[in-house]
């Protein structure tokens, strides 16, 4: 097994049950310039450290939720449903 992730509904499960949507990004303002939009679409912080990210419980309750994970160790520090 790679590592476990605790789904806020279903509890700890194998990471392969989930889809990872990547780091949480900040949406640009209402009418962004092309540069702002490109930054939002393509550029990523890709940190080596704790990262806040979106996950989807593909093979379970199908909920979208947020996790904090250390990308150096894959330790998942917390998970929560979005507000």
């Amino acid at each position, binding site marked *: *097994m*790679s590592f476990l992730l605790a789904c806020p509904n279903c509890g700890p499960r*194998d*990471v*392969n049950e989930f*889809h*990872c949507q*990547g*780091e949480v990004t900040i949406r640009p303002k209402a009418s962004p310039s*092309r*540069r702002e939009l*490109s*930054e939002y*679409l*393509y*550029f*990523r*912080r*890709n*940190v*080596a450290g704790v*990262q806040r*990210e979106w996950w989807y419980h593909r093979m379970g309750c199908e909920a979208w939720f947020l996790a904090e*994970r250390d*990308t*150096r*160790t*894959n330790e998942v520090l917390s998970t929560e449903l979005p507000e």
Partner: protein
Amino acid sequence: MKDIFRVRRMWRPRSELKPRYDVVIVGGGTHGLATAYYLAKNHGITNVAVLEKSYIGSGAAGRNTTIIRANYRTPEGAEFYKKSVELYEELGADLDFNLLFSQQGHLTLAHSDRGIITATERAEVNQLLGIDSRVIGRDEIRELCPEMDLSDDVTWPVMAALYHPRGGIIRHDAVVWGYARGVDRRGIEIHPYTEVTGIDRENGRVTGVQTNRGPISCGTVISATAGWSTLVCDLADVPLPITTHILQAFVTEPMKPFLDVIIVSSQMHVYISQTDRGEFLIGAEIEPYTTYRGTSTFPFLEFAARHTLELFPQLERVKVLRQWTGLCDVSPDYSPILGKTEVEGFHVSAGWGTYGFKAAPIVGTTLAELVATGDTPALIQPFELERFYTDTLVSEVAAAAVSH
């Protein structure tokens, strides 16, 4: 006789860092070493240091599945990789080092109508650019690879294949060592266990680097750090459109040779070759989450083994010898990011995902030319970082989304 036990060094250990070099190359993988090599060979620039945070070849350079090919989907990509394959064909002679390059041929299997369409499109682009590449049917596949299961009695029957006769495999460590020796012989310094921890700038121009062994001043810095590119570019405040993932591979115990062509199935996300030692070398897909942790996983082994057995059921009882992992710097369009950045004198080779090993010679040649002349060679202009700000991507999804 005594001579055979003599330790032969491929490159000299260097005790001290000099306070100044003209060019500092960060990363002692194939791209960093190739760039240093062509700086010296093609342009006579030798006041250069290659800094590597671990041992030489410790990154993806020594972990890849060594597939070299040019049959890409976009004209920009195909042209670029074609040049690289041509340089690889001469490289053993150039470095005077046996790289065990075996151009045994490369088959990308199509298991659906969609797969055949993609293969046909690639063949058309390739042929226009003079790349040996064509779509073949089952009869020809059977001739090239009689041991593969071509029956209809499987989950994904093979319908056709994209055949690229000049695709091949090579000894990756030899490429690293050959370049490193060539670099050393031309007077360039190789410094392992030297980590770059800062990039100094003044008025938007590079002035030096900080390392765990002290500061160095220099006019040009090249980041050739693959999976670590984001972290190194952060030091110069250059954002990248990259995420870091792991890619894994494994080898079986050695078997009598029976596979002398590289088999790739995009449908099943697996690729298979038999090495000179007789081991079956098998790779698959990156892990979908970003990570810098290089541990191997069991689900990968399960997945790759299952799909390999669909094609080669006779490997059923063969034992797995080793499994390993490397970091991959994945870009949004599966094309590299090459050349200048907004910081003057700071150039990058990044965005190599799962396919950068085959590009080392052409990356080295073009980046060396950029440093020597100050101009971006036409061949790599489509791959500038700037394309992500202007939304002019070079999509290689069709040819590179299955790793290698």
